[in-house]
Protein backbone atom coordinates (compact mmCIF):
# COMPACT_ATOMS: atom_id res chain seq x y z
CA UNK A 1 0.00 0.00 0.00
CA UNK A 2 2.74 2.36 1.02
CA UNK A 3 4.57 1.75 -2.25
CA UNK A 4 1.40 2.43 -4.20
CA UNK A 5 0.83 5.72 -2.38
CA UNK A 6 4.41 6.70 -3.05
CA UNK A 7 3.98 5.86 -6.72
CA UNK A 8 0.79 7.89 -7.02
CA UNK A 9 2.37 10.91 -5.41
CA UNK A 10 5.60 10.76 -7.41
CA UNK A 11 4.94 9.41 -10.89
CA UNK A 12 8.26 10.90 -12.03
CA UNK A 13 10.13 8.81 -9.43
CA UNK A 14 8.47 5.62 -10.71
CA UNK A 15 9.35 6.51 -14.30
CA UNK A 16 12.95 7.16 -13.33
CA UNK A 17 13.09 3.73 -11.69
CA UNK A 18 11.62 2.15 -14.85
CA UNK A 19 14.22 3.98 -16.94
CA UNK A 20 17.10 2.76 -14.75
CA UNK A 21 15.77 -0.81 -14.61
CA UNK A 22 15.44 -0.86 -18.39
CA UNK A 23 18.98 0.44 -18.76
CA UNK A 24 20.30 -2.24 -16.40
CA UNK A 25 18.32 -4.92 -18.25
CA UNK A 26 19.85 -3.75 -21.52
CA UNK A 27 23.26 -3.87 -19.87
CA UNK A 28 22.72 -7.47 -18.73
CA UNK A 29 21.50 -8.57 -22.16
CA UNK A 30 24.42 -6.88 -23.86
CA UNK A 31 26.92 -8.54 -21.50
CA UNK A 32 25.22 -11.91 -21.97
CA UNK A 33 25.68 -11.57 -25.71
CA UNK A 34 29.35 -10.89 -25.15
CA UNK A 35 29.25 -7.33 -26.45
CA UNK A 36 30.48 -5.76 -23.22
CA UNK A 37 28.80 -3.28 -20.90
CA UNK A 38 25.93 -1.01 -21.94
CA UNK A 39 25.78 0.93 -18.68
CA UNK A 40 28.55 3.33 -19.64
CA UNK A 41 28.76 7.12 -19.79
CA UNK A 42 29.13 6.81 -23.54
CA UNK A 43 25.86 4.89 -23.91
CA UNK A 44 24.01 7.21 -21.55
CA UNK A 45 25.18 10.11 -23.66
CA UNK A 46 24.08 8.28 -26.82
CA UNK A 47 20.66 7.67 -25.30
CA UNK A 48 20.23 11.40 -24.71
CA UNK A 49 21.50 12.15 -28.23
CA UNK A 50 18.90 9.80 -29.74
CA UNK A 51 16.11 10.87 -27.40
CA UNK A 52 16.28 14.59 -28.25
CA UNK A 53 14.30 14.24 -31.52
CA UNK A 54 11.55 12.24 -29.85
CA UNK A 55 11.68 14.55 -26.82
CA UNK A 56 11.08 17.66 -28.94
CA UNK A 57 8.37 16.08 -31.04
CA UNK A 58 6.55 14.89 -27.93
CA UNK A 59 7.00 18.35 -26.35
CA UNK A 60 4.50 19.78 -28.82
CA UNK A 61 2.38 16.67 -28.41
CA UNK A 62 2.33 17.22 -24.62
CA UNK A 63 1.04 20.78 -25.01
CA UNK A 64 -1.63 19.65 -27.45
CA UNK A 65 -2.71 16.71 -25.31
CA UNK A 66 -2.92 18.93 -22.22
CA UNK A 67 -5.64 20.88 -24.06
CA UNK A 68 -7.46 17.60 -24.68
CA UNK A 69 -6.45 17.28 -28.35
CA UNK A 70 -3.96 15.22 -30.28
CA UNK A 71 -1.64 16.12 -33.17
CA UNK A 72 -1.05 13.33 -35.65
CA UNK A 73 0.79 15.63 -38.06
CA UNK A 74 3.97 15.97 -35.94
CA UNK A 75 5.87 13.34 -37.94
CA UNK A 76 5.17 14.79 -41.39
CA UNK A 77 5.80 18.30 -40.06
CA UNK A 78 9.23 17.11 -38.90
CA UNK A 79 9.77 15.61 -42.35
CA UNK A 80 8.79 18.95 -43.90
CA UNK A 81 11.29 20.72 -41.63
CA UNK A 82 14.01 18.23 -42.57
CA UNK A 83 13.30 18.73 -46.27
CA UNK A 84 13.34 22.50 -46.00
CA UNK A 85 16.74 22.41 -44.32
CA UNK A 86 18.32 20.23 -46.99
CA UNK A 87 16.58 22.11 -49.84
CA UNK A 88 17.83 25.52 -48.68
CA UNK A 89 21.09 24.28 -47.17
CA UNK A 90 23.04 25.97 -49.95
CA UNK A 91 21.73 29.35 -48.76
CA UNK A 92 23.50 28.96 -45.42
CA UNK A 93 22.47 27.24 -42.24
CA UNK A 94 20.78 30.34 -40.75
CA UNK A 95 18.37 30.81 -43.66
CA UNK A 96 17.67 27.09 -43.85
CA UNK A 97 16.83 26.82 -40.15
CA UNK A 98 14.63 29.93 -40.13
CA UNK A 99 12.74 28.69 -43.20
CA UNK A 100 12.26 25.25 -41.65
CA UNK A 101 10.90 26.80 -38.48
CA UNK A 102 8.56 28.99 -40.56
CA UNK A 103 7.25 25.92 -42.40
CA UNK A 104 6.58 24.13 -39.10
CA UNK A 105 4.89 27.20 -37.65
CA UNK A 106 2.73 27.58 -40.76
CA UNK A 107 1.56 23.94 -40.68
CA UNK A 108 0.81 24.31 -36.97
CA UNK A 109 -1.15 27.52 -37.59
CA UNK A 110 -3.33 25.82 -40.21
CA UNK A 111 -4.05 23.04 -37.70
CA UNK A 112 -4.80 25.64 -35.05
CA UNK A 113 -7.18 27.59 -37.29
CA UNK A 114 -9.09 24.43 -38.19
CA UNK A 115 -9.30 23.17 -34.62
CA UNK A 116 -9.57 26.47 -32.71
CA UNK A 117 -11.68 28.58 -35.07
CA UNK A 118 -13.65 26.03 -37.11
CA UNK A 119 -13.83 23.53 -34.25
CA UNK A 120 -12.84 20.57 -36.42
CA UNK A 121 -12.07 17.38 -34.51
CA UNK A 122 -8.32 17.44 -33.80
CA UNK A 123 -7.76 13.89 -35.02
CA UNK A 124 -9.34 14.54 -38.43
CA UNK A 125 -7.76 17.96 -38.91
CA UNK A 126 -4.21 16.86 -38.13
CA UNK A 127 -4.49 13.59 -40.07
CA UNK A 128 -5.82 15.54 -43.06
CA UNK A 129 -3.06 18.15 -42.85
CA UNK A 130 -0.54 15.34 -42.50
CA UNK A 131 -1.82 13.72 -45.71
CA UNK A 132 -1.66 17.03 -47.55
CA UNK A 133 1.87 17.76 -46.33
CA UNK A 134 3.19 14.35 -47.24
CA UNK A 135 1.55 14.47 -50.67
CA UNK A 136 3.06 17.87 -51.38
CA UNK A 137 6.51 16.76 -50.17
CA UNK A 138 6.34 13.71 -52.44
CA UNK A 139 5.62 15.95 -55.42
CA UNK A 140 8.36 18.39 -54.41
CA UNK A 141 10.89 15.60 -53.87
CA UNK A 142 10.52 14.49 -57.49
CA UNK A 143 11.82 17.83 -58.75
CA UNK A 144 15.52 18.29 -59.19
CA UNK A 145 17.22 20.42 -56.59
CA UNK A 146 20.54 20.48 -54.84
CA UNK A 147 20.14 18.97 -51.43
CA UNK A 148 22.71 19.85 -48.82
CA UNK A 149 22.56 19.55 -45.07
CA UNK A 150 24.64 22.43 -43.65
CA UNK A 151 27.57 21.41 -41.48
CA UNK A 152 26.19 23.39 -38.58
CA UNK A 153 23.00 21.31 -38.61
CA UNK A 154 24.98 18.05 -38.86
CA UNK A 155 27.08 19.05 -35.85
CA UNK A 156 23.96 20.02 -33.92
CA UNK A 157 22.19 16.77 -34.70
CA UNK A 158 24.93 14.18 -34.38
CA UNK A 159 28.04 15.35 -32.53
CA UNK A 160 29.07 15.91 -28.92
CA UNK A 161 31.31 18.28 -27.02
CA UNK A 162 33.41 17.54 -23.90
CA UNK A 163 33.28 13.90 -25.12
CA UNK A 164 29.95 13.16 -23.50
CA UNK A 165 27.53 16.03 -24.03
CA UNK A 166 25.51 15.89 -27.27
CA UNK A 167 25.04 19.27 -28.99
CA UNK A 168 21.35 18.61 -29.44
CA UNK A 169 20.97 18.86 -25.65
CA UNK A 170 21.77 22.57 -26.12
CA UNK A 171 18.48 22.79 -28.00
CA UNK A 172 16.45 20.32 -25.99
CA UNK A 173 17.38 21.44 -22.46
CA UNK A 174 16.38 25.13 -22.84
CA UNK A 175 13.15 24.16 -24.65
CA UNK A 176 12.37 21.71 -21.84
CA UNK A 177 13.07 24.33 -19.16
CA UNK A 178 10.87 26.92 -20.87
CA UNK A 179 8.00 24.46 -21.29
CA UNK A 180 8.15 23.07 -17.74
CA UNK A 181 8.38 26.51 -16.14
CA UNK A 182 5.97 28.10 -18.61
CA UNK A 183 3.29 25.48 -17.97
CA UNK A 184 3.60 26.11 -14.25
CA UNK A 185 3.98 29.88 -14.02
CA UNK A 186 3.00 31.62 -17.27
CA UNK A 187 -0.54 32.75 -17.96
CA UNK A 188 -0.63 30.74 -21.17
CA UNK A 189 0.53 27.64 -19.29
CA UNK A 190 -2.29 27.91 -16.78
CA UNK A 191 -4.74 28.61 -19.61
CA UNK A 192 -3.62 25.39 -21.37
CA UNK A 193 -4.50 23.33 -18.29
CA UNK A 194 -7.79 25.19 -17.86
CA UNK A 195 -8.87 24.63 -21.47
CA UNK A 196 -7.99 20.94 -21.24
CA UNK A 197 -9.82 20.55 -17.97
CA UNK A 198 -13.04 22.28 -18.97
CA UNK A 199 -13.30 24.40 -22.13
CA UNK A 200 -16.75 25.76 -21.30
CA UNK A 201 -15.74 26.89 -17.82
CA UNK A 202 -12.55 28.42 -19.27
CA UNK A 203 -14.58 30.42 -21.78
CA UNK A 204 -16.94 31.62 -19.07
CA UNK A 205 -13.88 32.44 -16.99
CA UNK A 206 -12.68 34.85 -19.66
CA UNK A 207 -10.14 32.71 -21.52
CA UNK A 208 -10.30 33.01 -25.30
CA UNK A 209 -10.20 29.28 -25.94
CA UNK A 210 -9.63 29.59 -29.69
CA UNK A 211 -6.54 31.75 -29.15
CA UNK A 212 -5.06 29.23 -26.72
CA UNK A 213 -5.66 26.37 -29.19
CA UNK A 214 -4.20 28.41 -32.06
CA UNK A 215 -1.01 29.14 -30.12
CA UNK A 216 -0.66 25.56 -28.85
CA UNK A 217 -0.95 23.95 -32.30
CA UNK A 218 1.38 26.58 -33.82
CA UNK A 219 3.94 25.84 -31.10
CA UNK A 220 3.54 22.13 -31.70
CA UNK A 221 4.25 22.67 -35.40
CA UNK A 222 7.35 24.75 -34.66
CA UNK A 223 8.68 22.21 -32.12
CA UNK A 224 8.13 19.39 -34.63
CA UNK A 225 10.14 21.38 -37.17
CA UNK A 226 12.96 21.72 -34.60
CA UNK A 227 12.86 17.94 -34.17
CA UNK A 228 13.02 17.61 -37.96
CA UNK A 229 16.08 19.87 -38.12
CA UNK A 230 17.93 17.75 -35.54
CA UNK A 231 16.81 14.59 -37.32
CA UNK A 232 18.15 15.67 -40.72
CA UNK A 233 21.38 16.67 -39.00
CA UNK A 234 21.61 13.20 -37.49
CA UNK A 235 20.83 11.33 -40.73
CA UNK A 236 22.74 13.81 -42.93
CA UNK A 237 20.05 13.48 -45.61
CA UNK A 238 16.30 13.98 -45.86
CA UNK A 239 13.94 11.35 -47.19
CA UNK A 240 10.14 11.13 -47.22
CA UNK A 241 9.98 8.59 -44.42
CA UNK A 242 12.39 10.35 -42.08
CA UNK A 243 9.77 11.48 -39.55
CA UNK A 244 7.14 8.75 -39.66
CA UNK A 245 8.76 6.28 -37.22
CA UNK A 246 8.28 8.94 -34.53
CA UNK A 247 4.51 9.35 -34.77
CA UNK A 248 3.34 6.63 -32.39
CA UNK A 249 6.30 7.11 -30.03
CA UNK A 250 5.45 10.84 -29.76
CA UNK A 251 2.00 9.96 -28.46
CA UNK A 252 3.35 7.04 -26.43
CA UNK A 253 5.99 9.16 -24.67
CA UNK A 254 3.31 11.60 -23.53
CA UNK A 255 0.99 8.82 -22.35
CA UNK A 256 3.81 6.98 -20.56
CA UNK A 257 4.79 10.29 -18.97
CA UNK A 258 1.42 10.46 -17.29
CA UNK A 259 -0.36 13.18 -19.29
CA UNK A 260 -4.04 12.39 -19.66
CA UNK A 261 -5.33 12.08 -23.22
CA UNK A 262 -8.48 13.86 -22.02
CA UNK A 263 -6.46 16.95 -21.13
CA UNK A 264 -5.83 19.09 -18.08
CA UNK A 265 -3.58 16.64 -16.27
CA UNK A 266 0.16 15.98 -16.56
CA UNK A 267 3.23 17.89 -17.67
CA UNK A 268 6.41 17.83 -19.71
CA UNK A 269 8.77 16.36 -17.08
CA UNK A 270 6.99 13.00 -17.35
CA UNK A 271 7.13 13.15 -21.14
CA UNK A 272 10.93 13.60 -21.06
CA UNK A 273 11.24 10.42 -19.01
CA UNK A 274 8.79 8.73 -21.37
CA UNK A 275 10.98 9.67 -24.35
CA UNK A 276 14.11 8.37 -22.57
CA UNK A 277 12.39 5.08 -21.66
CA UNK A 278 11.25 4.52 -25.24
CA UNK A 279 14.75 5.28 -26.56
CA UNK A 280 16.37 2.72 -24.24
CA UNK A 281 13.67 0.22 -25.17
CA UNK A 282 14.59 0.77 -28.79
CA UNK A 283 18.27 0.08 -28.04
CA UNK A 284 17.28 -3.07 -26.16
CA UNK A 285 15.26 -4.34 -29.13
CA UNK A 286 18.15 -3.53 -31.47
CA UNK A 287 20.55 -5.48 -29.25
CA UNK A 288 18.12 -8.39 -29.15
CA UNK A 289 18.22 -8.28 -32.94
CA UNK A 290 14.44 -8.18 -33.12
CA UNK A 291 12.86 -8.12 -36.57
CA UNK A 292 10.71 -5.15 -37.58
CA UNK A 293 7.62 -7.30 -37.00
CA UNK A 294 8.52 -8.38 -33.47
CA UNK A 295 9.71 -4.88 -32.63
CA UNK A 296 6.41 -3.34 -33.67
CA UNK A 297 4.38 -5.88 -31.68
CA UNK A 298 6.47 -5.52 -28.51
CA UNK A 299 6.30 -1.75 -28.84
CA UNK A 300 2.54 -1.70 -29.11
CA UNK A 301 2.14 -4.11 -26.20
CA UNK A 302 4.38 -2.10 -23.89
CA UNK A 303 2.64 1.18 -24.69
CA UNK A 304 -0.67 -0.47 -23.95
CA UNK A 305 0.56 -2.02 -20.70
CA UNK A 306 2.00 1.24 -19.39
CA UNK A 307 -1.10 3.20 -20.38
CA UNK A 308 -3.24 0.62 -18.59
CA UNK A 309 -1.16 0.87 -15.42
CA UNK A 310 -1.58 4.65 -15.50
CA UNK A 311 -5.31 4.44 -16.02
CA UNK A 312 -5.49 2.13 -12.97
CA UNK A 313 -3.33 4.40 -10.84
CA UNK A 314 -5.29 7.56 -11.63
CA UNK A 315 -8.62 5.77 -11.18
CA UNK A 316 -7.40 4.59 -7.76
CA UNK A 317 -6.38 8.10 -6.79
CA UNK A 318 -9.82 9.57 -7.39
Amino acid at each position, binding site marked *: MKVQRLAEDNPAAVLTVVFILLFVATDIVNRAQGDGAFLTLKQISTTFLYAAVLGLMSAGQTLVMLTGGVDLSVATTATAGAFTVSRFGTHGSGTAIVLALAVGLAIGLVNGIGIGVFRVNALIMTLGIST*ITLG*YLTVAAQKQFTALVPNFVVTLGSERFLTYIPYDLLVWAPVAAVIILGLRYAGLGRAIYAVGDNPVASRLGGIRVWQVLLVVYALCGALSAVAGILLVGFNNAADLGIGSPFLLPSVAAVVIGGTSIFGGLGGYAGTILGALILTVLDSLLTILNASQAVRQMIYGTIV*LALAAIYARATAGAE
Partner: protein
Amino acid sequence: MGAFALLFVLVLYWRTQTAARWGPFDVQSLAIDALPLCFAACGQAIVILSGGIDLSVGSMMSLVNVVSARALLHLSFRDALLVSLLIVAGAALVGAFTGLLIVVTRVADIIVTLAMLFVLGGAALAVLEVPGGGAPIRYQNLVTLDTLATKWAPSAIGVLLGAYVVLWVPVRRTRVGLSLYAIGSSRSAAYLAGVNVPRSRIVAYAYSGAFAALGGLALTAASGLGDPNSGTIYTLNSVAAVVLGGVSLLGGVGGLIGPIAAAFVLTLVKTLMILKGVDQNWAQVIQGALIVLVVMIGGLAVRQKGKGS
Protein backbone atom coordinates in the same frame (compact mmCIF):
# COMPACT_ATOMS: atom_id res chain seq x y z
CA MET B 1 -27.43 12.87 -47.52
CA GLY B 2 -24.88 15.21 -49.00
CA ALA B 3 -22.64 12.29 -49.91
CA PHE B 4 -25.29 10.96 -52.32
CA ALA B 5 -25.74 14.32 -54.03
CA LEU B 6 -21.97 14.62 -54.37
CA LEU B 7 -21.75 11.08 -55.79
CA PHE B 8 -24.50 11.84 -58.31
CA VAL B 9 -22.81 15.04 -59.51
CA LEU B 10 -19.42 13.35 -59.71
CA VAL B 11 -20.81 10.43 -61.75
CA LEU B 12 -22.43 12.87 -64.21
CA TYR B 13 -19.11 14.70 -64.55
CA TRP B 14 -17.26 11.39 -64.86
CA ARG B 15 -19.48 10.39 -67.81
CA THR B 16 -18.35 13.43 -69.78
CA GLN B 17 -14.68 12.79 -69.09
CA THR B 18 -13.97 9.18 -70.13
CA ALA B 19 -12.20 8.80 -73.46
CA ALA B 20 -14.09 5.71 -74.57
CA ARG B 21 -17.87 5.47 -74.19
CA TRP B 22 -18.73 5.43 -70.49
CA GLY B 23 -20.23 2.04 -69.74
CA PRO B 24 -20.59 -0.99 -67.48
CA PHE B 25 -16.85 -1.52 -67.44
CA ASP B 26 -16.30 1.84 -65.73
CA VAL B 27 -18.95 1.05 -63.13
CA GLN B 28 -17.32 -2.28 -62.45
CA SER B 29 -13.79 -0.89 -62.02
CA LEU B 30 -15.12 1.78 -59.65
CA ALA B 31 -16.93 -0.88 -57.61
CA ILE B 32 -13.75 -2.99 -57.36
CA ASP B 33 -11.67 0.02 -56.31
CA ALA B 34 -14.19 1.17 -53.76
CA LEU B 35 -15.02 -2.20 -52.16
CA PRO B 36 -12.20 -2.39 -49.56
CA LEU B 37 -12.84 1.21 -48.47
CA CYS B 38 -16.59 0.56 -48.26
CA PHE B 39 -16.01 -2.30 -45.82
CA ALA B 40 -13.48 -0.31 -43.80
CA ALA B 41 -15.93 2.59 -43.61
CA CYS B 42 -18.75 0.27 -42.39
CA GLY B 43 -16.64 -1.04 -39.51
CA GLN B 44 -15.36 2.41 -38.61
CA ALA B 45 -18.91 3.83 -38.77
CA ILE B 46 -20.22 1.31 -36.25
CA VAL B 47 -17.40 2.09 -33.80
CA ILE B 48 -17.81 5.87 -34.21
CA LEU B 49 -21.59 5.55 -33.83
CA SER B 50 -21.00 3.89 -30.49
CA GLY B 51 -18.78 6.77 -29.37
CA GLY B 52 -15.35 5.24 -30.01
CA ILE B 53 -12.78 5.32 -32.79
CA ASP B 54 -10.77 2.47 -34.31
CA LEU B 55 -7.33 3.40 -35.64
CA SER B 56 -6.36 -0.27 -36.07
CA VAL B 57 -8.62 -0.76 -39.13
CA GLY B 58 -5.75 -0.36 -41.60
CA SER B 59 -3.48 -2.90 -39.91
CA MET B 60 -6.33 -5.36 -39.50
CA MET B 61 -6.93 -5.16 -43.26
CA SER B 62 -3.22 -5.72 -43.98
CA LEU B 63 -3.16 -8.69 -41.60
CA VAL B 64 -6.23 -10.34 -43.13
CA ASN B 65 -4.86 -9.57 -46.60
CA VAL B 66 -1.59 -11.44 -45.97
CA VAL B 67 -3.17 -14.26 -43.95
CA SER B 68 -5.76 -14.94 -46.65
CA ALA B 69 -3.21 -14.63 -49.46
CA ARG B 70 -1.18 -17.35 -47.79
CA ALA B 71 -4.05 -19.58 -46.69
CA LEU B 72 -6.26 -19.50 -49.80
CA LEU B 73 -3.61 -19.90 -52.51
CA HIS B 74 -4.01 -23.63 -53.20
CA LEU B 75 -7.57 -24.18 -52.02
CA SER B 76 -10.64 -25.00 -54.08
CA PHE B 77 -13.25 -22.26 -54.47
CA ARG B 78 -15.57 -23.78 -51.85
CA ASP B 79 -12.82 -24.32 -49.30
CA ALA B 80 -11.59 -20.78 -49.93
CA LEU B 81 -15.03 -19.41 -49.08
CA LEU B 82 -15.18 -21.49 -45.89
CA VAL B 83 -11.71 -20.42 -44.80
CA SER B 84 -12.70 -16.80 -45.53
CA LEU B 85 -15.63 -17.18 -43.16
CA LEU B 86 -13.26 -18.50 -40.50
CA ILE B 87 -10.93 -15.55 -41.06
CA VAL B 88 -13.79 -13.06 -40.68
CA ALA B 89 -14.88 -14.78 -37.47
CA GLY B 90 -11.30 -14.73 -36.18
CA ALA B 91 -10.96 -11.03 -37.00
CA ALA B 92 -14.22 -10.33 -35.16
CA LEU B 93 -12.71 -12.08 -32.13
CA VAL B 94 -9.55 -9.97 -32.36
CA GLY B 95 -11.76 -6.88 -32.62
CA ALA B 96 -13.71 -8.02 -29.56
CA PHE B 97 -10.38 -8.46 -27.76
CA THR B 98 -9.49 -4.83 -28.59
CA GLY B 99 -12.85 -3.77 -27.19
CA LEU B 100 -12.25 -5.88 -24.09
CA LEU B 101 -8.87 -4.22 -23.58
CA ILE B 102 -10.51 -0.78 -23.80
CA VAL B 103 -13.21 -1.74 -21.30
CA VAL B 104 -10.91 -3.51 -18.84
CA THR B 105 -7.92 -1.16 -18.88
CA ARG B 106 -10.04 2.03 -19.05
CA VAL B 107 -7.45 3.49 -21.43
CA ALA B 108 -8.84 5.85 -24.10
CA ASP B 109 -10.04 4.17 -27.34
CA ILE B 110 -7.57 6.10 -29.46
CA ILE B 111 -4.55 4.92 -27.46
CA VAL B 112 -5.58 1.27 -27.35
CA THR B 113 -6.42 1.12 -31.05
CA LEU B 114 -3.24 3.05 -31.91
CA ALA B 115 -1.27 0.39 -30.01
CA MET B 116 -3.25 -2.33 -31.81
CA LEU B 117 -2.41 -0.61 -35.11
CA PHE B 118 1.21 -1.41 -34.31
CA VAL B 119 0.63 -4.90 -32.91
CA LEU B 120 -1.48 -6.02 -35.87
CA GLY B 121 0.84 -4.30 -38.36
CA GLY B 122 3.75 -6.20 -36.81
CA ALA B 123 1.78 -9.43 -37.05
CA ALA B 124 1.13 -8.75 -40.75
CA LEU B 125 4.86 -8.29 -41.33
CA ALA B 126 5.55 -11.52 -39.44
CA VAL B 127 3.11 -13.45 -41.62
CA LEU B 128 4.46 -12.14 -44.91
CA GLU B 129 7.42 -9.82 -45.13
CA VAL B 130 7.32 -9.10 -48.86
CA PRO B 131 4.26 -9.13 -51.14
CA GLY B 132 3.28 -12.61 -52.29
CA GLY B 133 0.68 -15.37 -52.03
CA GLY B 134 -2.61 -15.30 -53.90
CA ALA B 135 -6.13 -16.63 -54.19
CA PRO B 136 -8.07 -19.06 -56.45
CA ILE B 137 -9.13 -17.48 -59.75
CA ARG B 138 -12.84 -18.06 -59.16
CA TYR B 139 -12.48 -16.41 -55.77
CA GLN B 140 -10.93 -13.35 -57.41
CA ASN B 141 -13.59 -13.29 -60.11
CA LEU B 142 -16.19 -13.03 -57.38
CA VAL B 143 -15.07 -9.45 -56.88
CA THR B 144 -13.39 -8.52 -60.17
CA LEU B 145 -15.12 -10.13 -63.16
CA ASP B 146 -18.52 -11.58 -62.36
CA THR B 147 -21.71 -9.61 -62.74
CA LEU B 148 -25.20 -10.16 -61.43
CA ALA B 149 -28.23 -10.34 -63.78
CA THR B 150 -27.17 -7.45 -66.05
CA LYS B 151 -23.62 -6.38 -66.78
CA TRP B 152 -24.43 -3.07 -65.09
CA ALA B 153 -24.50 -4.78 -61.70
CA PRO B 154 -20.96 -5.85 -60.82
CA SER B 155 -20.76 -8.64 -58.28
CA ALA B 156 -18.59 -6.47 -56.03
CA ILE B 157 -21.75 -4.49 -55.31
CA GLY B 158 -23.52 -7.77 -54.61
CA VAL B 159 -20.83 -8.78 -52.12
CA LEU B 160 -21.14 -5.42 -50.37
CA LEU B 161 -24.94 -5.58 -50.24
CA GLY B 162 -24.78 -9.18 -49.04
CA ALA B 163 -22.48 -8.30 -46.15
CA TYR B 164 -24.64 -5.30 -45.26
CA VAL B 165 -27.86 -7.33 -45.30
CA VAL B 166 -26.42 -10.30 -43.39
CA LEU B 167 -24.31 -8.46 -40.80
CA TRP B 168 -26.07 -5.20 -40.10
CA VAL B 169 -29.74 -5.13 -41.19
CA PRO B 170 -30.97 -7.89 -38.84
CA VAL B 171 -29.10 -6.37 -35.90
CA ARG B 172 -29.73 -2.67 -36.31
CA ARG B 173 -33.26 -2.56 -34.87
CA THR B 174 -32.65 -5.16 -32.18
CA ARG B 175 -31.58 -4.50 -28.58
CA VAL B 176 -27.92 -4.90 -29.57
CA GLY B 177 -28.10 -2.47 -32.48
CA LEU B 178 -30.05 0.15 -30.57
CA SER B 179 -27.70 -0.13 -27.59
CA LEU B 180 -24.80 0.78 -29.93
CA TYR B 181 -26.59 4.05 -30.77
CA ALA B 182 -27.55 4.53 -27.13
CA ILE B 183 -24.01 4.30 -25.74
CA GLY B 184 -22.86 6.58 -28.55
CA SER B 185 -25.25 9.39 -27.73
CA SER B 186 -24.93 9.23 -23.95
CA ARG B 187 -23.05 6.55 -22.08
CA SER B 188 -24.43 7.44 -18.67
CA ALA B 189 -28.04 7.69 -19.89
CA ALA B 190 -27.63 4.32 -21.59
CA TYR B 191 -26.24 2.85 -18.39
CA LEU B 192 -29.14 4.21 -16.36
CA ALA B 193 -31.57 2.78 -18.92
CA GLY B 194 -30.14 -0.67 -18.25
CA VAL B 195 -27.86 -1.05 -21.28
CA ASN B 196 -24.85 -3.27 -20.71
CA VAL B 197 -22.35 -0.59 -21.76
CA PRO B 198 -19.12 -2.64 -21.69
CA ARG B 199 -20.70 -5.44 -23.72
CA SER B 200 -22.03 -3.02 -26.33
CA ARG B 201 -18.62 -1.41 -26.72
CA ILE B 202 -17.04 -4.82 -27.25
CA VAL B 203 -19.71 -5.66 -29.84
CA ALA B 204 -18.88 -2.45 -31.74
CA TYR B 205 -15.19 -3.36 -31.98
CA ALA B 206 -16.05 -6.94 -32.96
CA TYR B 207 -18.07 -5.48 -35.84
CA SER B 208 -15.14 -3.30 -36.81
CA GLY B 209 -12.86 -6.36 -36.86
CA ALA B 210 -15.30 -8.35 -39.02
CA PHE B 211 -15.79 -5.54 -41.55
CA ALA B 212 -12.07 -4.80 -41.69
CA ALA B 213 -11.54 -8.51 -42.39
CA LEU B 214 -14.01 -8.32 -45.29
CA GLY B 215 -12.05 -5.30 -46.53
CA GLY B 216 -8.81 -7.28 -46.30
CA LEU B 217 -10.37 -10.21 -48.20
CA ALA B 218 -11.58 -7.73 -50.83
CA LEU B 219 -7.99 -6.51 -51.19
CA THR B 220 -6.83 -10.10 -51.68
CA ALA B 221 -9.50 -10.82 -54.26
CA ALA B 222 -9.04 -7.54 -56.14
CA SER B 223 -5.24 -7.66 -56.31
CA GLY B 224 -4.65 -11.43 -56.13
CA LEU B 225 -1.77 -10.64 -53.81
CA GLY B 226 -0.93 -10.29 -50.15
CA ASP B 227 1.00 -7.18 -49.10
CA PRO B 228 1.77 -6.35 -45.44
CA ASN B 229 1.33 -2.62 -46.19
CA SER B 230 -1.78 -2.86 -48.33
CA GLY B 231 -4.14 -1.61 -45.61
CA THR B 232 -2.15 1.36 -44.35
CA ILE B 233 -4.12 4.08 -46.15
CA TYR B 234 -7.48 2.77 -44.96
CA THR B 235 -7.21 4.02 -41.38
CA LEU B 236 -7.47 7.69 -42.35
CA ASN B 237 -9.67 7.10 -45.37
CA SER B 238 -12.21 5.11 -43.36
CA VAL B 239 -12.51 7.93 -40.82
CA ALA B 240 -12.83 10.43 -43.70
CA ALA B 241 -15.56 8.37 -45.36
CA VAL B 242 -17.45 8.11 -42.08
CA VAL B 243 -17.29 11.87 -41.50
CA LEU B 244 -18.26 12.66 -45.12
CA GLY B 245 -21.05 10.12 -44.78
CA GLY B 246 -22.81 12.16 -42.14
CA VAL B 247 -21.87 10.23 -39.01
CA SER B 248 -21.17 12.47 -36.03
CA LEU B 249 -17.72 11.98 -34.49
CA LEU B 250 -19.39 12.54 -31.12
CA GLY B 251 -21.35 9.33 -31.64
CA GLY B 252 -25.00 8.34 -31.72
CA VAL B 253 -25.93 9.84 -35.10
CA GLY B 254 -25.72 8.31 -38.60
CA GLY B 255 -25.82 4.97 -40.40
CA LEU B 256 -23.80 2.79 -42.74
CA ILE B 257 -25.31 3.84 -46.08
CA GLY B 258 -23.88 7.38 -45.89
CA PRO B 259 -20.30 6.19 -45.28
CA ILE B 260 -20.62 3.65 -48.12
CA ALA B 261 -21.70 6.45 -50.50
CA ALA B 262 -18.83 8.59 -49.20
CA ALA B 263 -16.39 5.73 -49.82
CA PHE B 264 -17.54 5.72 -53.46
CA VAL B 265 -17.11 9.50 -53.61
CA LEU B 266 -13.54 9.34 -52.27
CA THR B 267 -12.64 6.55 -54.69
CA LEU B 268 -14.24 8.35 -57.62
CA VAL B 269 -12.34 11.57 -56.84
CA LYS B 270 -9.10 9.59 -57.08
CA THR B 271 -10.23 7.89 -60.31
CA LEU B 272 -11.17 11.24 -61.86
CA MET B 273 -7.86 12.78 -61.00
CA ILE B 274 -5.91 9.88 -62.47
CA LEU B 275 -8.14 10.17 -65.56
CA LYS B 276 -7.22 13.86 -65.81
CA GLY B 277 -3.54 12.95 -65.70
CA VAL B 278 -2.97 14.51 -62.30
CA ASP B 279 0.11 13.21 -60.48
CA GLN B 280 -1.01 10.61 -57.96
CA ASN B 281 0.63 12.55 -55.14
CA TRP B 282 -1.21 15.73 -56.08
CA ALA B 283 -4.33 13.58 -55.99
CA GLN B 284 -3.43 12.76 -52.39
CA VAL B 285 -3.05 16.47 -51.59
CA ILE B 286 -6.37 17.34 -53.17
CA GLN B 287 -8.14 14.45 -51.45
CA GLY B 288 -6.76 15.54 -48.08
CA ALA B 289 -7.75 19.16 -48.71
CA LEU B 290 -11.24 18.05 -49.70
CA ILE B 291 -11.67 16.09 -46.45
CA VAL B 292 -10.43 18.99 -44.32
CA LEU B 293 -12.65 21.51 -46.14
CA VAL B 294 -15.77 19.38 -45.84
CA VAL B 295 -15.18 18.86 -42.12
CA MET B 296 -14.47 22.59 -41.65
CA ILE B 297 -17.74 23.56 -43.34
CA GLY B 298 -19.50 20.93 -41.25
CA GLY B 299 -17.96 22.42 -38.10
CA LEU B 300 -19.07 25.90 -39.14
CA ALA B 301 -22.63 24.66 -39.76
CA VAL B 302 -22.78 23.11 -36.29
CA ARG B 303 -21.51 26.36 -34.83
CA GLN B 304 -24.15 28.46 -36.59
CA LYS B 305 -26.84 26.07 -35.42
CA GLY B 306 -25.52 26.34 -31.87
CA LYS B 307 -25.73 30.13 -32.03
CA GLY B 308 -29.29 30.08 -33.37
CA SER B 309 -30.76 28.06 -30.54
